[in-house]
């Protein structure tokens, strides 16, 4: 009876932790299998422990090239989408203008549209323009679909900002430009950073739109896709694990710094 009561009280916690396990399980598998030494071309069955892939992560031809290309595209897409998206977000929150509804729908629709539809449409456009598919078409596509997410992230932050802060800056002799640089931008920064991070992640991990518009250029997700057909090298798991670990470490370090700073100030 006591056990049943305990179970009742902690049902949510148990269910939540199960979901968490479901979310983490594939990453555990990816990590474990990065130490595998598979027999055939596919890395789906456990054979024996090996660190060979970790010692030679670029040992598969094309893997590290595709990774570096993906990182470059993600970086540029992040910069482009963040710049354009932040401008739109400010315009939406701070100004009145005509056709606000139309603008809002134009920003919302890319998020509500299945990727495959956007991908196919864009490819049609590129083919008709006779554009050379490759780096630039990928970048254009990535900026396009990241833009809306940046707008949403920045808009939320700017909307929650007290308009009196900007008025106070003006009252204290800061002209429009100074007000923007000294007050508006720093306060909106967390929202802009969140939007930028989201854009980077979305761009780096995108497969569907890239697959349509890349031509013969191979990004990292496309490399993985291709290898799923031809044979999956262990190095893929090494890269996947490394990125997971780096991300977690970065977050932990930034949190630790934040904590320490807070403690010093107090």
């Amino acid at each position: 009876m006591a056990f049943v009561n305990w179970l009742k009280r902690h049902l949510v916690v148990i269910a939540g932790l199960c979901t968490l396990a479901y979310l983490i399980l594939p990453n555990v598998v990816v990590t474990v299998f990065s130490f595998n030494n598979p027999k055939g071309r596919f890395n789906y069955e456990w054979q024996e422990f090996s660190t060979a892939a970790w010692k030679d992560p670029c040992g598969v031809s094309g893997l590290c090239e595709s990774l570096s290309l993906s990182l470059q595209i993600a970086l540029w897409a992040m910069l482009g989408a963040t710049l354009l998206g932040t401008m739109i977000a400010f315009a939406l929150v701070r100004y009145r203008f005509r056709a606000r509804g139309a603008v809002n729908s134009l920003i919302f629709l890319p998020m509500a549209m299945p990727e495959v539809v956007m991908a196919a449409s864009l490819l049609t456009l590129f083919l008709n323009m006779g554009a050379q598919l490759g780096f630039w078409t990928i970048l254009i596509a990535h900026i396009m679909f990241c833009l809306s997410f940046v707008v949403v992230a920045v808009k939320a932050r700017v909307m929650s900002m007290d308009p009196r802060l900007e008025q106070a800056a003006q009252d204290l002799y800061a002209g429009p430009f100074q007000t923007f640089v000294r007050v508006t931008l720093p306060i909106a920064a967390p929202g802009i950073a969140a939007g930028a991070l989201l854009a980077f992640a979305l761009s780096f991990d995108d497969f569907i739109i890239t697959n349509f518009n890349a031509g013969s250029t191979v990004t990292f997700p496309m490399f993985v896709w291709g290898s799923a057909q031809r044979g999956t090298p262990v190095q893929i798991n090494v890269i996947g694990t490394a990125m997971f670990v780096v991300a977690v470490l970065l977050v932990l370090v930034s949190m630790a710094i934040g904590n320490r700073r807070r403690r010093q100030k107090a």
Partner: protein
Amino acid sequence: MTTVTEAPPLAPAPERKPPRRRGRWTPYLLLLPGLLWLVVFFALPVIYQASTSVQTGSLEEGYEVTWHFATYWDALSAYWPQFIRSVLYAASATVLCLLLGYPLAYLIAFRAGRWRNLIMILVIAPFFTSFLIRTLAWKTILADGGPVVGALDALHVLDVTNLLGWTAGDRVLATPLAVVCGLTYNFLPFMILPLYTSLERIDPRLHEAANDLYARPSTTFRRVTFPLSMPGVVSGTLLTFIPATGDYINADLLGSTDTRMVGNVIQTQFLRILDYPTAAALSFLLMAAILFMVTFYIRKSGTEDLV
């Protein structure tokens, strides 16, 4: 010395500099580059897609608009099973995401205490491993004769799912169950994050107030917590359902030819068979279907101010 009188309404103030207006053109200048980008690379292509769908011709001789709406009919009659399948799979995955995601979001919002940040990191961090790699990992997890399949078999779960047609024989891989499982996994964070955001905004004192007013925990949840988390539920289901409907990765990697979804068909038509009108018609049908369902759903759930 101090005086007050009511002045008559003045005629426009004599010779003053034009009133400084914070640039009337500023908003348009701010909007211009981004909107131009969206118009050229999003709106125009979609419109162009519409015209492609009513073109006829061949790759060699070129296409022209002939208002050949029969393409839509042909596409629909040839691929209606894939359409139905897409909606069914996506709907099942969305429901599963909600069922799995809600407890976790609730846990993070109200019960995690000092573990909150850690759990948040664990929810978000998998994002940083390419989703294709993670989806491939499911091939290992659900492998034939593997521990998961073995356990399901031993518990006679597979017998039930076989009966329902979700699995076939003693396999999970290459069955609808595997595809739905992959879809659920891939879009689960898109459900958890909005749920968490709306749950976190709920003042815990509301729970106490409900308890104080004779509501048992289950009633508190049904009458207070869940209704207040509705915005999260709505945006979470949308963020899950829409991309899941158009997805073809999971069906391709974890499924078989019997689990092909609309996304697979569009992809094949576009990139392999190069039948552009059919592919365009299919994308347009998919888009229309989704917009229709989403609009209906948003109306129904009464959260039109969501976006």
